[in-house]
């Protein structure tokens, strides 16, 4: 019945059921159907219908972050935004663009670059990741070191709420304090407060030159000290990534050749040619005395490899965890995390956006570890993140591991406000229920 009504909204070709649903299975749970509305109005109608039937909605972009979160408690309806993939408006003189949520990051970047601009957000897997998904998952990449994350770039958002209303927050101008900052609320909300349908983003002009360089170290500790020295210097890097020896192996195919280093510091620069040249030279002067090798330029393709180096180094990973700590703690936590895996006979690869204190730790499957062993390592990693002043999130892990290690960390006393927000904004609990922080 529900499926028939959904078909009449989106057309039969835009509803998947049965075996076609395999790409949309999350943590072993198959959805009832996947629907792909072709307009804002169809999206609204689908949500309204599902809400009245009490069927949960799982907003879906490119599926790149589908593994994040607690296992779904009940099957729902996957709401795919893939047909809403258009660049609605791009005014170069305003340095803003309005984009439909289902447009991929790669498609948006190529449209913008043709006019000399770009969105300064570089999440992993840009060919699949959609703008709506990147915002909902708060995905980011190496260039966040200088250019920030989605919260710094999203200036307006259109969502369909759990009761089928269309709500707009923010606006189309780069500076705006009218009303509550709804864009901040939706960034990182993992589809629990509204289905993002359209977004307006701040852009940047493409720089004359962009360069990614690498400095090798024998020890993670030294590379960490070098990263801190860069932070305290006059350099203005766009990226400051630290890779341990294991993670650095994944960069070999991307042009980082030679004997595997103990650690790699990958640093990005952009600007005028003279700015980039001066900074590459200065980087050598800052890192050399701390044990760094000479500064080597990496090919442009290394940018994409950098963001996903840790999981690729142990491909396929048994689990991937994101650890957020104080920036000065990065090297210590990196060494401890690898040590915890080694102590149980396992291999881990760890990379970090060192300047902002965000690490990605991937646990290998060599030795086919039992879920209990994986869970034990993950619990230790979380404890290390907490000791470093932060927290840890499971980016991906088998169901048996998620049963033992919560996907999200504890939000503390603020969890009460988060639950109150969820109850106010999605009172029927229709939007991606049970998958987020604090049981939201």
């Amino acid at each position, binding site marked *: 019945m529900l499926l028939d009504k959904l078909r009449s909204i989106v057309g039969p070709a835009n509803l998947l059921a049965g075996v076609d649903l395999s790409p949309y299975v999350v943590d072993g749970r198959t959805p009832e159907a996947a629907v792909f509305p072709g307009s804002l109005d169809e999206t609204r109608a689908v949500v309204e219908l599902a809400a009245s039937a009490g069927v949960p909605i799982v907003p879906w972009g490119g599926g790149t972050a589908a593994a994040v979160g607690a296992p779904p408690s009940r099957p729902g309806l996957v709401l795919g935004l893939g047909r809403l993939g258009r660049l609605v408006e791009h005014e170069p003189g305003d340095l803003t663009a309005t984009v439909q949520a289902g447009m991929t990051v790669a498609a948006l970047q190529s449209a913008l670059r043709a006019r000399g601009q770009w969105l300064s957000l570089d999440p992993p897997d840009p060919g699949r990741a959609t703008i709506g998904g990147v915002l909902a998952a708060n995905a980011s990449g190496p260039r966040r070191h200088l250019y920030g994350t989605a919260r710094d770039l999203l200036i307006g958002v259109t969502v369909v709420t759990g009761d089928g209303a269309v709500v707009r927050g923010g606006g*189309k101008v780069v500076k705006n304090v009218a009303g509550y900052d709804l864009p901040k609320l939706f960034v990182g909300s993992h589809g629990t407060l509204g289905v993002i349908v359209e977004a307006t983003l701040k852009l940047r002009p493409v720089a004359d030159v962009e360069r990614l360089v690498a400095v090798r170290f024998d020890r993670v500790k030294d590379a960490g000290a070098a990263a801190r020295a860069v932070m305290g210097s006059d350099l203005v890097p766009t990226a400051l990534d630290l890779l341990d020896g294991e993670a650095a192996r994944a960069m070999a195919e991307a042009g980082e050749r030679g004997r595997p280093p103990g650690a790699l510091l990958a640093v990005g620069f952009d600007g005028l040619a003279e700015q980039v040249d001066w900074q590459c030279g200065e980087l050598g002067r800052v890192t050399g005395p701390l044990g760094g090798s000479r500064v080597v330029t990496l090919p442009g393709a290394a940018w994409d490899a950098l963001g996903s180096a840790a999981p690729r180094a142990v491909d396929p990973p048994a689990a991937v965890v994101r650890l957020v700590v104080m920036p000065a703690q990065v090297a210590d936590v990196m060494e401890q995390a690898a040590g915890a895996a080694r102590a149980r006979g396992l291999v881990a690869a760890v990379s970090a956006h060192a300047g902002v204190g965000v690490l990605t730790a991937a646990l290998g499957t060599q030795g086919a570890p039992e879920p209990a062993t994986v869970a034990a390592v993950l619990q230790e990693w979380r404890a290390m993140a907490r000791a470093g002043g932060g927290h840890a999130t499971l980016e991906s892990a088998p169901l048996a591991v998620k049963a033992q290690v919560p996907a999200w960390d504890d939000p*503390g006393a603020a969890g009460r406000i988060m639950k109150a927000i969820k109850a106010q904004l999605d009172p029927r609990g229709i939007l991606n229920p049970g998958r987020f922080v604090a049981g939201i």
Partner: protein
Amino acid sequence: MASLAEPRKRALRQELEALLGRGGVLSDPDELAVYESDGLTLFRALADFVVFPRSAEHVAAIVRLANREGLPFVARGAGTGLSGGCLPAEGGIVISLMRMNRVLEVDYDNQIAVVEPGLVNLHLSWAVGPRGYYYAPDPSSQQACTLGGNIANNSGGPHTLKYGVTVNHVLGLEVVLPDGEIVWLGGRTRESVGYDLAGVFVGSEGTFGIATRIVVRILKKPQAVRTVLAVFDEVAHASQAVSAIIGRGLVPAAVEMIDQLTIQAVEDAFGCGYPRDAAAALLVELDGLAAGMEVQAARIVAACREAGAREVRAARDEAERALLWKGRKSAFGAYGRVSPAYMVMDGVIPRTRLPYVLDRVNAIVAAHGLRVGNVFHAGDGNLHPNILYDPRRPGEEARVVAAGAEIMKLCAEVGGSISGEHGIGLEKADFMPFIFSAADLAFMERLKAAFNPTGRCNPGKMFPTRKTCGEAGAVAYRPHPIEEKGLAQRF
């Protein structure tokens, strides 16, 4: 809301004094009058008490007392706000954070500072300056305004063009929620668990609770700074230069525009070196690496010349640069030279619409028989038309309010916003429907209910007044008590 009966007021005063000490509570009408308005003196409202806590625990105790008594309460910093946001619109308790003004900790390794809400914005940069750091958001009132007030309003400033507004620099907040509980939203790390509550709290205009500790990023001072003054004989050419600069792929730290009326006022008052006969001037600042600075400056100069600048020059030294910025940042004060009063407007438009909108703004104000001075953040399209008037002339203030409403409608029509940095407060609550639908506003009210279910925390702000629709802004001017005593003047 009726004021409290005397016996109850005495009892509450005693209870507040027991908590805060005798010097921590004001309740005499003469003293309360100092707190009856903010920088927008069009609106006035008297509190029953003004209190001065020294800790989060004090704030929480005051909030719990207010809840027990059913009294509204509102946090207040330096009172430099320009939208009536910190007014005790419905009586009750004003909680001044001015005695919580310490820098609690600076962690240079992690480039963060932990401060109290009453700390003056500029004092943070002073505190970290000796080590080569600064706090980036720089509202024009930065010598007086507080970080807590900046949080409430998500304050901007000239350099936000490159560095972003307050929210881009805030990592975490300890807040006293409207029910008196003390919680942390966000923290010291760059990402927090769950919804970005710190991000949502910033700019909530005091309606989500009261920040008692603030974790902000501090930035390394740039290696080099270059400030360029471009002088134009036509306002339209200056507007076009803004687009040309952006179009050349340059991201200056700041691009500020100053029109002729403002230049003349500034020159009369301070003599900062702006040419009095110019129709408009652009103040363009580049900062960053020393390498390449000359090339970038040359691109700015070329863009301005091509747009029709009659003169473009770089500040020769730090003294000249400081003088040019003094002119820009003191412009509001300088209007006192040319008018007994003025009202600051704050709107945002897409940068490409600057030439059209500036023309229309001037026409709207002229049609109301008034004069306007423009000094604003041109680089991000954040307008500040300042409408000059004489409050003693009957009917003039009403014309200012009417012209202001038309300007806000204009900003909305071209796809802009009704506030870029001053907030909605009381002033623009009834303009919210210009840019938000009923569904948008209902969603925001539900969000507010999650933090502030009783509505006692800063009531009457941001949302259109349903009962008295259209009456906001109708508060009559009367001289401030300290004006009457000759202790202060309006400017």
